[in-house]
């Protein structure tokens, strides 16, 4: 048991170490130099710069980007930035520090995706296990649900999101079409603001929940169809144990194990996956911030977000690994 936690923790450290190192190397192998790119951007607007000023500018930019000194000291610099969460100032929002930009957008991302993942995972798995258990004689309501999910599942998310936007924001103007809260609203912990935030989050959340529920539903259905044919389920049926007990105590608890694993795998897709949502619904978040950082070559912000998401995703996986023994006694007692 102690060995299990220790190995997982070690794995976490190795993953973070390797990916940070990899990011460091890849960035330095890029053919374009961020400093030259910034200078070129400034000069391309037609601003005249004194060559000595340019020289000074290059030096301060190098310092700002952590590109000063030998490769080794740059490498240690990267680690220092990550540990102190001080990634320097952002260029496109100069002089706002990168860390405060991340802090602001990560709130919306985690809030939205946390709810989406929790809700869709729960609903999808519960419906999936019922459909899987009764797969030989599926009740009509379940058959209909299965069919609907089968149709929804292959729809690309950006199309589904647009359908939601057009339907519930334009044709039936029930929900706002963009932003995280109304313009002119003062963020604060009061009822009217919270309701406003929930209203704005409804469409992005619902569209993602719908699609991800179908995904969890279908994989859970397949897994629990298999578990339903296991000897211990058949024997429980012979014993006359009630169906709902068999579904939740026998099928669900066993079929859940691979679903916990794929949940932790899906954490990795969080930051990229929310990008389309953020663009379609103009919702603030890490994905959109990263996108605009790339578009404006905001070097510090890109590195900041990438390093941050590496640590966040690995940490999430680590937490899931740590609670996994709660689901599987075979690990708890090995």
């Amino acid at each position, binding site marked *: 048991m102690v060995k299990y936690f220790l190995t997982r923790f070690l794995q976490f450290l190795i993953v973070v170490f390797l990916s940070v190192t990899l990011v460091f190397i890849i960035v330095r192998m890029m053919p374009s130099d961020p400093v030259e790119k910034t200078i070129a951007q400034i000069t391309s607007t037609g601003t005249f710069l004194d060559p000595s000023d340019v020289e000074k500018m290059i030096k301060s930019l190098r310092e700002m980007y952590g590109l000063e000194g030998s490769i080794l000291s740059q490498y240690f610099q990267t680690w220092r930035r990550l540990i102190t969460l001080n990634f320097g100032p952002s260029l496109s929002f100069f002089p706002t520090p990168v860390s405060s930009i991340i802090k602001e957008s990560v709130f919306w991302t985690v809030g939205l995706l946390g709810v989406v993942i929790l809700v869709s995972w729960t609903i999808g798995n519960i419906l999936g296990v019922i459909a899987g258990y009764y797969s*030989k004689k599926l009740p009509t309501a379940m058959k209909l649900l299965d069919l609907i999910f089968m149709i929804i599942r292959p729809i690309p998310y950006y199309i589904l999101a647009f359908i939601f936007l057009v339907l519930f924001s334009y044709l039936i103007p029930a929900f706002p079409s963009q932003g995280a809260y109304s313009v002119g609203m003062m963020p604060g912990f009061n009822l009217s603001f919270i309701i406003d935030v929930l209203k704005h989050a409804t469409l992005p959340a619902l569209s993602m929940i719908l699609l991800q529920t179908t995904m969890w539903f279908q994989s859970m259905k397949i897994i629990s169809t298999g578990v339903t044919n*296991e*000897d*211990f389920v*058949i*024997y*429980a*049926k*012979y*014993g*006359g*144990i*009630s169906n709902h*007990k068999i579904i939740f*105590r*026998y099928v669900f*608890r*066993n079929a859940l194990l691979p679903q916990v694993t794929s949940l932790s795998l899906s954490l990795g897709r969080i930051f990229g996956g929310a990008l389309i949502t953020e663009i379609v619904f103009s919702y603030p978040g890490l994905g959109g911030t990263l996108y605009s950082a790339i578009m404006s070559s905001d070097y510090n912000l890109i590195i900041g977000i990438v390093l941050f998401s590496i640590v966040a995703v690995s940490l999430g996986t680590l937490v899931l690994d740590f609670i996994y023994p709660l*689901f*599987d*006694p*075979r690990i708890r*007692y090995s």
Partner: protein
Amino acid sequence: MMSVEVLRTENLKSYYILDIFGKKKVIKAVEDVSISIKENEIYGIAGESGCGKSTLLKAMFAAVEPPQRIIGGKVIYRDNGKEYDVYHISEEERKKFRWHFISYVPQGSMSVLNPVMKIKEIFKDFIETHTKGKTKEEIYEIAESHIRDLGLPSGILDAYPHQLSGGMRQRITIALATVLSPKVVIADEPTTALDVVTQRGVIQLLKDIQALKRNTIIIVTHDMGVHANMADRIAIMYAGRIIEEASTEEIFENPLHPYTRYLIYSIPKFGDKKKRESAPGAPPSLSNPPSGCSFHPRCPFAFEKCREEVPPLKEYKVGHKVACWRVEEGENATA
């Protein structure tokens, strides 16, 4: 002593009806089986793999799931002097018989224990289903005293299945099936996949339970050694039919059916260096059984009548039934 009947089948027929790409395929796994099992006896059913033994058990336990189907005949349970035709009562009533009256130790019972539950929770689920208004503690108490009665360590109730050995899991499954003292216990190949020492322990456990609870055990295995060791009476099954039925001694000492002889003479004995002979050929396909006596293609004594007519299961000696034309002819000749 008049022994009382506890379970009976009448001309039971159970087929598997498969639908393979729109083509129907019928596997006649149990064909016209009529057996009568008495209270307090150990009844053995023997036969090669694929002769319909497990199908017969499932039909007797009334746990028939598609593609298996009951085509005809009856299964009668006799409980407290009353007879119940199992396939003419509702599913709910049928479930009430389980564990109280009849219970089942399945084939490959290594994997019948839910891997994510403690043994005592599994016991609780089964006991709870069949008893009313008992607290959790009372239920655990029932499980614990039963485990202790069987001489198994009571600590295993707190274990998870993966922490136990295969033999222990098999014994736990037997304990689970007998926890509510059913009148009939059906055991399907309880010793298969166990090493000989563990086999011995499992057989002993079944015998102990029988001695303790005075119930009926129906045991199915292809292992004639196990039958010799346990059973009071033995039925030999071939291609879905019972072809011989007699007391254990009678079967071993005076087998009448040629197939039974092959079965018994193939058991190795100490000091006997003669070459063992088994029945030539392979068991017939149940989807397309041979005409007449289904053993005739492999029988060295087969004659014209064997190929044309199915021999009836007839009692030739008290308690010794055989289905064989040759025995019938011999009987007529001596008469």
